[in-house]
């Protein structure tokens, strides 16, 4: 298994490099201009100067190599410097200055050029880190809530196959699956914010939870986005759970267990459930990168302003370094979680061996 993991990790390096090249070229080919949002009243000569200041004049391969160097060399060294200088965990280590370089003219220590966003003219990674908490809280929690609702529904639907509960569950999951969040989101806002006035329609990202009152505010503002997203997760995972349970319920070992005189609850909850979880766990693992990727539409509807909203605004503004970095981070996460899912599969099911 260790061999397999190492082999896969090594193989993922060329894969990721290839992905980064494809993303870069696709973005280059896409129509659009970072100056598109600048009003018509700004003359064309000024716009041209602004483009040059963004580094758009350089040849394409230079731009790509610069990005690679910034992403793979400068950004990790900034992170290491942070760890050794300021972090709580590793702050005792001697301070490093990997991300610093000596300015040839003045001889002073200056920071190396990081991946800079065209919209904000600031390092992309700082904004990504700033956005992480909102996204992890809202999207991550909705994933958890979705799983917690989906698994019991899936189990019971399979156990009482074609019962009223199963039919109703199927109906609701189909609805949840087919209705997009840009419909359910505003619908919930109109009901709970506009008509009833119970919940806020705009998420406050600056809220600091330090008392019961702020906890309640945080709870209230998270209900709607979390439920909208959880509906999607629930729909998807409960279907997988149901079909995995159905596959196992008719197996010989289930009949054996019942014949042994085991209680029905033990048969279903221990024997069948454990075996049915194998494919579901891998599905859950493969869905994890989506949490980090945020939920573009739902974040916008509720103004959660996490990673998804960041990607969307960057796309609208043609902020290529931001789009490139974000999509590439997603690519890394997907490759990584695919590997984790494969390993988990092997761990859960002893019949599966990769070596």
């Amino acid at each position, binding site marked *: 298994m260790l061999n397999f993991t190492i082999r896969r990790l090594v193989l993922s390096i060329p894969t990721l490099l290839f992905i980064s090249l494809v993303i870069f070229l696709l973005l280059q080919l896409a*129509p*659009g*201009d970072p*100056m*598109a*949002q*600048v*009003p*018509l*009243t*700004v*003359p*064309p*000569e*000024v716009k041209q*100067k*602004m*483009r*040059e*200041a*963004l580094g758009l004049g350089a040849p394409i391969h230079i731009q790509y190599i610069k990005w690679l160097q910034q992403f793979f060399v400068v950004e990790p060294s900034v992170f290491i410097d942070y760890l050794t200088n300021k972090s709580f965990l590793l702050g005792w280590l001697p301070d490093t200055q990997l991300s610093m370089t000596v300015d040839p003219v003045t001889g002073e220590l200056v*920071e190396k050029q990081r991946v*800079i*966003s065209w*919209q*904000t*003219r*600031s*390092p992309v990674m*700082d*904004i990504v880190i*700033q*956005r992480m908490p909102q996204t992890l809280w809202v999207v991550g929690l909705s994933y958890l809530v979705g799983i917690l609702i989906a698994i019991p529904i899936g189990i019971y639907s399979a156990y009482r196959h074609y019962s009223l509960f199963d039919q109703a569950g199927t109906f609701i999951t189909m609805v949840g699956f087919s209705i997009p969040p840009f419909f359910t989101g505003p619908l919930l*806002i109109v009901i709970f*914010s*506009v008509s009833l*006035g119970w919940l*806020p*329609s*705009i998420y*406050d*990202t*600056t809220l600091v939870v330090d008392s019961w009152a702020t906890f309640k505010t945080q709870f209230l503002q998270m209900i709607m986005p979390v439920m909208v997203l959880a509906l999607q997760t629930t729909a998807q995972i409960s279907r997988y759970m149901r079909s995995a349970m159905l596959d196992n319920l008719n197996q010989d070992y289930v009949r054996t267990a019942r014949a042994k005189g085991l209680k029905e609850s033990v048969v279903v909850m221990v024997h069948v459930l454990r075996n049915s979880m194998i494919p579901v766990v891998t599905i859950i693992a493969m869905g994890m990168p989506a949490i980090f990727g945020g939920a573009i539409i739902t974040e*916008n*509807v509720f*103004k959660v*302003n996490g990673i998804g*909203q*960041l990607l969307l*605004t960057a796309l609208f*503004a043609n902020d290529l370094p931001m789009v490139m970095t974000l999509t590439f981070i997603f690519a890394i996460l997907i490759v990584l979680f695919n590997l984790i899912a494969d390993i988990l599969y092997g761990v859960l099911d002893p019949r599966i061996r990769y070596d």
Partner: protein
Amino acid sequence: MKMRTLLMGAIATTAFAPVAFADGHEGERGRDGQLNIIYWQAPSILNPFLSGGTKDLEAASLVLEPLGRYDENGALVPFLAEEIPTVENGGVSEDLTSITWKIAEGMQWSDGTPVTSADVKFTAEYCMHPEGGCAQGAKFSGVESVEAVDERTIKVTFDGPQPNPYQPFMGAQSPILQMAQFKDCLGPKAPECTEANFNPIGTGPFVVKDFRPNDVIQFEANPNYRDPSKPAFATVNFKGGGDAAAAGRAVLETGEFDYAWNLQLAPDVIAKMAEAGKGTPISAFGTLVERIEINLTNPSPDLPAETRSTIAEPHPILSDFKVRKALSMAIDRELLTEVGYGQAGRATCNFVPAPALYASDNTECLTQDIEGAKALLEEAGWTDTDGDGIRDKDGMKFSLLFQTSTNAVRQDFQALIKDFWNQIGVETELRNLDGSVFFGGDPGSPDTFQKFYADVEMYANNFDGTDPQAYLGSRRCGTEPKPSSQWQGENINRFCDPAYDALLDELETTGELEKRGEIARKLNDMLTKDTMTILPLVDRGRVSAASTTLGGVVLNVWDSELWNVADWYRKK
């Protein structure tokens, strides 16, 4: 009206405003708690010189201030300056080649240090740096030098006479930066100063406490603000993101926010939201005009690429003034406005609809006259000889291709106008193109508005600030898009009239406001009612929304919408 009169009026208005509104909202700084503002486009940076986006300029205007601003009528008001320099008060030289500003006494940055002429001089250096890519570079074009005469006096010298010397350091586009904070951020180093670009030190009523790009900004009242009783609010929560409908809803329906910017929504949607009673939509008019541009050259696809839609080939139908006039007479502008913009639009016949000084009293196009239009076409020789309902002349049918960008309101307008023109026997073929292509300016594309491969086209445009000189100058002979200029150019109609150019030359050397107004109005009339080259339709306003509990809001389209946020207060 002279500049001085305008100024006196502005000063008088500000002086009387507190008296008029003195309903118990005066008091100490920060008495009214938090102000919640929502912009559906989130600000990315608070340095207006690195971003041309309106959202960024307006967010920065809470902190950074220029020497002078435009008020809601487009008049100039001093902010950091003692007064607006004019020729009369000696601030602008007689030959219009220099302007001398004086910073008012006792102006302080929010960190407590004094504002000096060195800061102003530095701001010019910052924006004029050749490698800086300054978004407001056009404000400093023609500036030869900026000198600090003494601690509080700055002299800007231009490379020639400049009848409108209020370009640098005026308005939301050109505020003053603190030299101490930005001195290491010149030119290519500008993006390295993230800390300064996100948390600029300013002189405005608020200071940045926390800036989260493309998300939210938190401001606090500036402890060193020049008026000890302002601002009334202690903190500002400036949320960004989402869409116009959600922003409108948060102010008008749920009351979560106090102010929402630029609600580009259908008039019935806004009216429906306003019924909830939590807020009121407010609107004001600037210079944005939705218009039909007439192609004076022949766009026929049968012509070779070198001459198609160029001055070498005059338009076979539209070169006749009577025909263009008939097309204008057939349009019911009031109906179009009601359908498309409601409260946020007014029918207009002017290319330059405002400020009042430059707006012509041209209103004759506002009445639809189908019969008159028909008579004019008959007079011009266009008759329906074959009885198919479409006029013709010398075997040519009166058929036009009408193009615009894809947008619900524009397609409604197209359908209505097609119907109006049908009533006078003109056949219209409609076409709409994606905005990013239509306005994109790609010389290889046949579908750009500059290339104008159609007979008539519709879009909106405006000008920055209050002076229309450059805007009117766009119709000068020879500035039309053509193959030799890679189809770049602003003279969309391919209009050319030596008398118009002569008048433009006169405008460029005239400094006296009264006279400038007169010339500008004449130029406007030459393009509209005298030649019917441009058929203005709607003067499009700006609609924002303010909570019913928010007082002191004066919507301003000439400067930042938040220009007078220091005077806002909570109604008790």
